[in-house]
């Protein structure tokens, strides 16, 4: 056991996966990841090509080049860096390269700010990457390992983004168990890419696809994401069987069995919410919590089924798709509505640019959900913790 912050946990996770190539560019609050990995490489604890690229766009290009020759590639970024590599996110997913990237969730300028919200990754929703959001350092380390197992599965070949909340996860120290290298080697064998240059079978890669062919490639990506739902569950079970920690796949429920109202959130806010759920349950209130772990592929089937079980759903969005509502709420409402008579939903816009989501905030959210379930009026979209 060690006492590590989230960034360090990711660095250890990456180390254990034995990537061949790590092209990186530093950006707060991901910097500790790349610094630790640099230390590992310098101290010969990691055998890989560590490339100091001149930008995040180049980092993803280099990762793609590495994957193209069958190397396992890892990189990490945040916020402006993620935005900078935006077109490459499409390139990598469309080319079907199983790259794993850690993203430290940090808000996007303007206004410029280094602190955490999920606007950066949620706004990359449509780039074709699998996205998982972790609650703490242990899950961060474990998901880097699982990410490769998911990405490199024959049925998937889709890149995976592992998201940590900036500062709250990345810079907070917690107990983390670092698995043994030989155990991770057994869990994650070396990459034998079926999408790489092979001198014995020369092929052209990343070609154009004319109108007559293009849509079929997109259908393949769609299928791969559908397959990923199953693969994620399989990998989670296999990981749990080996390392003793299960994360329950796409979604984890906390005390939802007989819940009347539930909150849905991604990342560290879940940890804080667990405490509030326990407190309200002790008061006899039937509240539950849904940890949305994977945003893509989106567990639509789960929410359709949830629709029949609860009276009101609150969705915490650490983002806002200006012109409409929180991105996560939109997707959840759409899934809830695909069943008949869906529960009412309140979209809470909270935790923007590092504004703390307090236990009091969360308790307030549950009380509003009860109002809603009792037929009282509540606005569909509410900003939490605004000054005035």
């Amino acid at each position, binding site marked *: 056991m060690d006492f590590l912050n989230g960034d360090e946990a990711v660095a250890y996770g990456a180390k254990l996966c034995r990537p061949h190539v790590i092209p990186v560019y530093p950006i707060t609050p991901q910097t500790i990841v790349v610094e630790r990995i640099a230390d590992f490489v310098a101290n010969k604890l990691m055998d890989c090509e560590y490339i100091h690229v001149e930008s995040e766009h180049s980092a993803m290009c280099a990762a793609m080049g590495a994957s193209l020759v069958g190397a396992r590639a890892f990189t990490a970024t945040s916020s402006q860096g993620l935005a900078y590599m935006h077109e490459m996110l499409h390139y990598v997913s469309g080319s079907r390269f199983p790259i794993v990237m850690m993203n430290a969730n940090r808000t996007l300028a*303007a*206004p*410029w700010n280094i602190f955490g919200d999920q606007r950066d990754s949620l706004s990359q929703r449509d780039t074709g990457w699998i996205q998982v959001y972790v609650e703490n350092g242990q899950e961060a380390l474990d998901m880097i390992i699982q990410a490769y197992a998911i990405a490199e599965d024959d049925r998937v070949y889709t890149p995976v983004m592992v998201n940590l909340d900036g500062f709250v996860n990345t810079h907070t120290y917690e107990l983390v168990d670092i698995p043994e290298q030989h155990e991770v080697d057994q869990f994650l064998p070396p990459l034998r890419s079926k999408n790489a240059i092979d001198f014995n079978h020369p092929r052209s890669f990343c070609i154009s696809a004319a109108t007559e062919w293009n849509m079929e490639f997109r259908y393949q990506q769609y299928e791969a994401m559908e397959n990923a739902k199953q693969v994620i569950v399989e990998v989670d079970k296999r990981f749990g069987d080996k390392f003793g920690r299960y994360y329950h796949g796409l979604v984890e429920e906390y005390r939802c069995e007989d819940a009347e109202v539930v909150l849905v959130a991604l990342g560290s806010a879940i940890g804080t919410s667990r405490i509030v759920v326990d407190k309200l349950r002790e008061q006899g209130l039937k509240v539950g919590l849904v940890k949305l772990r994977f945003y893509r592929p989106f567990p639509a089937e789960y929410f359709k089924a949830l629709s029949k079980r609860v009276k009101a759903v609150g969705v915490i969005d650490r983002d806002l798709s200006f012109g409409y509502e929180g991105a996560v709420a939109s997707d959840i409402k759409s899934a809830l509505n695909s069943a008949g008579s869906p529960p009412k939903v309140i979209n809470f816009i909270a935790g923007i640019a590092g504004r703390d989501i307090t236990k009091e905030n969360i308790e307030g959210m549950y009380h509003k959900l009860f109002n809603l379930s009792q037929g009282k009026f509540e606005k569909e979209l509410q900003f939490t913790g605004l000054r*005035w």
Partner: protein
Amino acid sequence: MAKPQIVKFKFPESLKEMPLGPSAEAGILTEPNAGWRVQRPVLDHSKCSRCLMCWVLCPEGVIDKQNEKLEIDMNYCKGCGLCAHECPKDAITMVNEGE
């Protein structure tokens, strides 16, 4: 050139008072910035020849030559000691804060 004076920043008190886009009035210093100073420069005017070496060299630009006697702005002096080190007349001494 007149140095900006410390002006308490008036924060918006309602949404209506928020500026359009993240911006703010320019040319004001809102807070003193000397908290980490361990030593402060003390200028002995009887030794000062007004050669202005300290004024030229000060990395923070806190030496004011407007008046006959040079003045050091303690709100922004960081106590680096360059002025004391370079003064050809040894007119400046670095003294521990709090003494």
